[in-house]
Structures are given as structure tokens and as C-alpha cells.
């Protein structure tokens, strides 16, 4: 499976590169409406055709992928750090603090995320640019996505705290922050990596779900959620392959993240 992991990494790098360079690679501005050519098939001018408003699909795919690929990892990093902090402290301290924090985490996990996001989205100021709006959405996802990972981290820290090398370190006079930084954190790295890689596709999917509900990224900024909305409904099942390119790319990127994750688990 080594070749698959390598291919996944190469694919992610190429996708990431194309998206970062979207300003130079995209054949047209993502918001420009070619009103004489709505729903056009692929052509020399529009390699993936145009959408229902006549916007170039390839350009929107590149910019949309950039939005999702840049912001989802950022949100995943934030939520993983939050999970490490909460879960790490609870697991390391143990006792009543661990029980209290985990009870709060369970409560947090039981919250209906989607409704919460919809409510928070509705309370945001109206005059924000699409870019700020999408950053707020991903920031919210980052803030809300730590609880599951915190449970895993807490359990792992709890186990590590009871291990022989920790006992040895304590017996050697290590304590407090030194023990945490030099002994615990290096041993937590694999699990934090895993939580990070799991979170990335989860956040991409959540944004896609919000997009399908019409509550994700606002027009005219594209995102995967917005691009996947096109496939919602019977009317779109026309068998035009170019309509399925965002979905294919989305599946490939999410799969690639999982293949990369496998490598991290082996660390």
C-alpha cells in the first residue's frame, strides 16, 4: 500500500498547488457570469463548461477547492490543539477534574451541532464579505469539533500516566511541566496526528452539508459545499460527466487524507 500512500500525497500536493495558484491557473474570475452561456458543456473557453449562471466551472472548482483545502486543515489544527489541551489536562490530572471535564465533553458532544451552527450563522452580522463569512464558519467548526478528539486524548494520557516510563521519570525527579513536555507530548504525537487527519475531511463534509442547506459559503465565493449542491436533485442527473468533477475531486481528496492517515498511524 506504500504506492497508494505516495500517490495520495502526490495528489494532495498537486491539488493544493493548483488551488494555491488558482489566481494564475483559473481561466476566468470565479464570480464572472457568462450570461450567454449558462449550463454550457466543456469547450476550449470553458474546459469544464459553465454552471447554471454561466460561471466557469473549472475556475470555481479551483477557488472552491482552495477555500475548503486551506480552511479545513486550519480548523482541524485548531480543534486538535483544543482537544490536546482539554483532554491532556483532564487525563494528566485525573480524579474529579478528569470526571468533570469528561462530563462536560459528553454534554458538548450531545449538542445538535447542525442546529447550533445554523443558529450561530443566523446571528452573525449581515454585512460581512464572503471570505470573512467562510472563515467564521470554519472557525466555528474548529471551536465545536474538539470534543470527540478530547475524549480520545484524555483516555490516552490517562493510560500513559500509568505507564512504566512515566513512573521512572517521576522517580528520577521529573514533575509538572517537564514531565508533560518531555515525556507525555512526544508520546501523544501519533494520536494527535491521527485526530488532525480525521478532522480535516469531517470539516470539509460539514461545510459541504452546510452548503447543501444553503448556509455555508455565501455567493459568489465557491466552496465544495456550494459546488456539490448542483448534484442535489433529480433534475441534475443528466449524465453530463463534467457536473460530477467536483464530487470526484472531493472523494479523491477525502480518500487521500485517509490514506495519508494510515501512514501516520503506523508511526
Amino acid at each position: 500500500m506504500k504506492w497508494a500512500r505516495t500517490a495520495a500525497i502526490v495528489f494532495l500536493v498537486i491539488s493544493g498547488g493548483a488551488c494555491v495558484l488558482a489566481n494564475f491557473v483559473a481561466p476566468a474570475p470565479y464570480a464572472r457570469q457568462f450570461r450567454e452561456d449558462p449550463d454550457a458543456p466543456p469547450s476550449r473557453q470553458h474546459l469544464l463548461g459553465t454552471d447554471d449562471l454561466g460561471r466557469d466551472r473549472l475556475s470555481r472548482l479551483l477557488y472552491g477547492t482552495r477555500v475548503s483545502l486551506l480552511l479545513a486543515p486550519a480548523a482541524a489544527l485548531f480543534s486538535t490543539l483544543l482537544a490536546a489541551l482539554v483532554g491532556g489536562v483532564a487525563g494528566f490530572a485525573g480524579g474529579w477534574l478528569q470526571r468533570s471535564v469528561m462530563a462536560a465533553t459528553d454534554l458538548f458532544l450531545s449538542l445538535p451541532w447542525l442546529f447550533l451552527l445554523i443558529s450561530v450563522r443566523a446571528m452573525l452580522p449581515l454585512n460581512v464579505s464572503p471570505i470573512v463569512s467562510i472563515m467564521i464558519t470554519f472557525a466555528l467548526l474548529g471551536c465545536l469539533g474538539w470534543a470527540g478528539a478530547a475524549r480520545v486524548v484524555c483516555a490516552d494520557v490517562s493510560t500513559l500516566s500509568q505507564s512504566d516510563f512515566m513512573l521512572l521519570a517521576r522517580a528520577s525527579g521529573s514533575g509538572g511541566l517537564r514531565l508533560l513536555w518531555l515525556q507525555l507530548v512526544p508520546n501523544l504525537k501519533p494520536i494527535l496526528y491521527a485526530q488532525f487527519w480525521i478532522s480535516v475531511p469531517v470539516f470539509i463534509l460539514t461545510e459541504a452539508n452546510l452548503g447543501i442547506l444553503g448556509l455555508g459559503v455565501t455567493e459568489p465565493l465557491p466552496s465544495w459545499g456550494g459546488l456539490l449542491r448542483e448534484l442535489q436533485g433529480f433534475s441534475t442527473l443528466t449524465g453530463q460527466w463534467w457536473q460530477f468533477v467536483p464530487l470526484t475531486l472531493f472523494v479523491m481528496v477525502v480518500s487521500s487524507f485517509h490514506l495519508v492517515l494510515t501512514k501516520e498511524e503506523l508511526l
Partner: protein
Amino acid sequence: MKRLLAFSALLANLMLMACATWAQGGGELRFCLRTEPKTLNPLQAADDASETIRYLTGGVLVRVNRLTQELEPELATSWKVTDKGQTITFQLREGLRFSDGTPFSADDVAYTMRQLMDPALHSPTGDAFRAGEGKVETRTLNKNRVAITFPAPVAGLDRLFDQVAIMSATSSQKELAVLGPYYVAENKAGAYLILKRNANYWKKDPDGRPLPRIESIRLEIQTNRDIEVLRLVRGEITFINSIDAEYFDKIVSQDPAMAHDAGPSLDSEQIWFNQVANSPLPAYKKVWFTSTKFRRAISESINRQDMVRIAFRGHAVPAIGLVSPANKFWFNAGLQLHPFDTKSALQRLAEDGFKLQDGVLRDRDGYAVEFSVITNSGNKYRERMAAMIQQDLSQVGIKLNIVTLDFPSLIERITRTFDYEACLLGFVNDELDPDAQMTVWLSSAENHQWNPNQKTPATAWEAEIDKLMHDQASTTDPKKRKAAFDKVQQIAWEQEPFIYLVNKNALSAVSPSVHNVHPAVLRPQVYWNIDQLWLSGEVARNH
């Protein structure tokens, strides 16, 4: 003898053929309701599903012909409006019976009116009749003649009875005893309803045979429109009463004979600016939004033709004003479509102190013109329209931010907090008569969306509209009413508190197995002549 036998055989054959042809009546018509009906009481019907049941089962005194938009006799053979619109007298058909066999008389009309106007019932249909303080008096002049007197004149009084299904005063089945073509035979909550042919229905075809011809109707609760379309294509249902443009095109591509475009409907899509004086908007934005020139400039910056062609795939017409051209009598034909003209828009803005500098429009105080428009999430058409308006307005240097909100949040903003700048929504119009628009156009009304519940009209033109709406409501002379309402349309066209964008077409899809279908723009588009429809033999037999 042989000749006689041959003649007898021929006659028998002819009779059998005639019977077979008539037997093609029968069968089961199937279509979907998008929600479960909230009530089977016709007087309390307010949602689409309940109104569908009311239409199919209820017998009414008069009926608006959905094609001609003229009023036609039903249970009443004639009627007369007197006392300047305060009294209406109906002459009823004789010898009719409800579906359970109880006889129909003037007492049933009186009973229905008492129920309808009972404040405790909160009947939405009854609200249309409430013209003033006081009781509604119903006098049964004889067994087949009834006079109803209202405390104040009611505009368009006779047409309002199109919505009033007459109930039996004596039947033990209460609202389930009906005078319409069908009665509710089975109601499986959340799944389906089955309506059976009312054997006591009074109408007959020109050959004297009883109507309706279709034996039963199966109404399935189906919220998913994709599935509804798939079921139509598979032949599992016989029609879709109202269908979106994309689905319509899909059906056209598969079977053009199924698709029916009846032309522009009464429904409209529009955008409006928040003009509420105490809204939490900055003062400079309130100045923009209350300026007629600003609103007219925005209107002229929007390319409605593109909107029709792209967002609605050609199945709409650019909206001219508050009344759709589909409303044959009340539409003011003297009004013209607001042109798409960015030069004229910029000129109007310049007259109001706005300046276009480096591609950014600024007001006289230097504020860049930027505002947000809210619309409900999940509505593809509105999202497309908003995106198109966004690009159109960028041509005159205006930055538009689009915000899609879940419906409750949107309603909260436009009706309670007034924390919004502009809103893009649609109005669903069922009524032809302008009286139905009183709740929108009176400045004191709740649905006067741009600035509701005003104690006194905020502007001179709103005061003028108030006066004209009251004028048209206080006379029964159609000419005077039309003149007053034409003037209302003219003022609304000039001031543009609502910037009307498009009138969607009434689209439907009907299986070729259903005959005598003449889709109309008024609801219910496909089955308005339900008692005249029939199914072709194969479908009738299979169902």
C-alpha cells in the same frame, strides 16, 4: 328474421361500445400532497393540502372559472349583491343531497355562515368577509333562497364565496358530509388519503350522465419533489399540479406531451428595502433606502430579462408591478416594464448626490454603497436571482452581500427586529381581487413589509395608497374599483417600495392518460375542473 337478428346484434354491439366508452370513466387519479392536510374542516383550511381537500370535496355556491376567471353558478343558480355590497341573496338549486344523503337547503347555507363567522373558529376564509364591527345576519327567505347581510360593504363579495364549502346543518357526519364531487373515504395519517366519488353529486355531463367520471382519487403525502417527479415519469402518479422550472425542463426532454406551461402566474418575486424608521440601521443607509430615486435606480440596474432566461430557464416573465398580467381584470395595462438601463440608473443616483468613483458608488457623505440582501436558504431560484442582482449592481459600483438564512431567522428579522437592509422573497397570490392585498398595501398593515404597522402613513404616497385602497373596498362598482386600484398600481410602480422582479409561469406535468385537462394559472392549476376529467381506458383499468 335474419335481418332483425342482425339489427339486434348491431344494436347490442353499439350499446356495449357506448358502455365500454363510458366505463373508461372510473379508475383512480393519483397525485401527491407535499404536506399532510392540517384539517379536514373546510372552514379552517389555510394550508395548501387542506385547501386541496376542500376544493375536491366542497360544494360551493359560486365558483371562479379558473380559465376565464369569471364567476359561475354552482349550488346557487343565481345571486344578487345589494345594499352597496352589504347584502347578497342566493337562489339555490333544488333537490340536492349531501354525500351522506341528507338534503341540501337554505338552512345549510345559514349554518355554514354562522360557523364561518364564529370568532371562536378563527376561520381564515371567514376573515375575508370581516368588513366591519357587528354580526353577519343570514335569513332563509324560503327553502331555496337565502340572504346574507354583512355589517359593512364587502368588496368583491360574490367572488369570496368561491372559498366557502357549504356544510350540512343536520348530518351526523358533520364536515365529512359534502356537496362536492368527492368525499374523504380514508385518511391514513402521514401516508395517504383516498377520496371516493360522491354518488349524490349534482352535476351531469351534456348527455345527462352523472359526474365526476373518475371513481377515486389517491392523494399521497410526498415531501420530496425529486421522488414526486420520478413517480410521475414511472406512471405511479398522474400529475404534478405545480412544478419547478428545472423539473419541468427535465420532463419536457423526456415526454413533451406531459409538460404544460400555462404562462405567467399570479405569484411574484420581489426585493424590498427596510424603511422602518426605528430599525437598527445606520442613519445614512436609512436615507438611501427611503429615497425613491435610489430604489428606482436599483430597479433599473437589474436585468430582469436575464433573470427570466437564466434563473427561471425562460419559464417566467419580467414583473411590471404588483399585479401580474395573469390577473386579467385587475392588471393595469398602462404600466410598462422598468427598463434595464444602467446609464439612467447612474443619472438617478447622481441626482440624489451619489458619485461613481474608481468603480465604487459613494453617497454625498462619502460612504461607499454596500448593503446586504437576505433570502431564505435552500431556494435555488432566489439564490440565483440574488447572485445575478449582485453582478448587475456591481456594474453601478454597488457592493451587495448575499445572506441566506433559515426561514424562522429571516421572518424574525423582517417582522420583529427589523435588523436587515434588503430582503428578497416571493408572494404567493391566490386571490384575484385587490381586497386580498389590503393587508399588504395599507400602511397600518402587518404585511406592509418595507415599513409595517405605521400609526400614520410615513409618506404622502403611502397615505394616497391608503385612501385609494379604502376607496376601492368601499364600493361595489367594478369600474370605480378598477380606477382606484389602477392608481394604486401606478403609485407602486413609481415609488417601488417593492422592486418586482419576475412573475413565475404556472408549470405543471400531466400524464397523457388524463383527458380534458386545461391547466390554468390559478390554483388548482390542473384539477380545477376535476369533475370533467377522465382517464384513458388502460389507466382506468390498471388502477
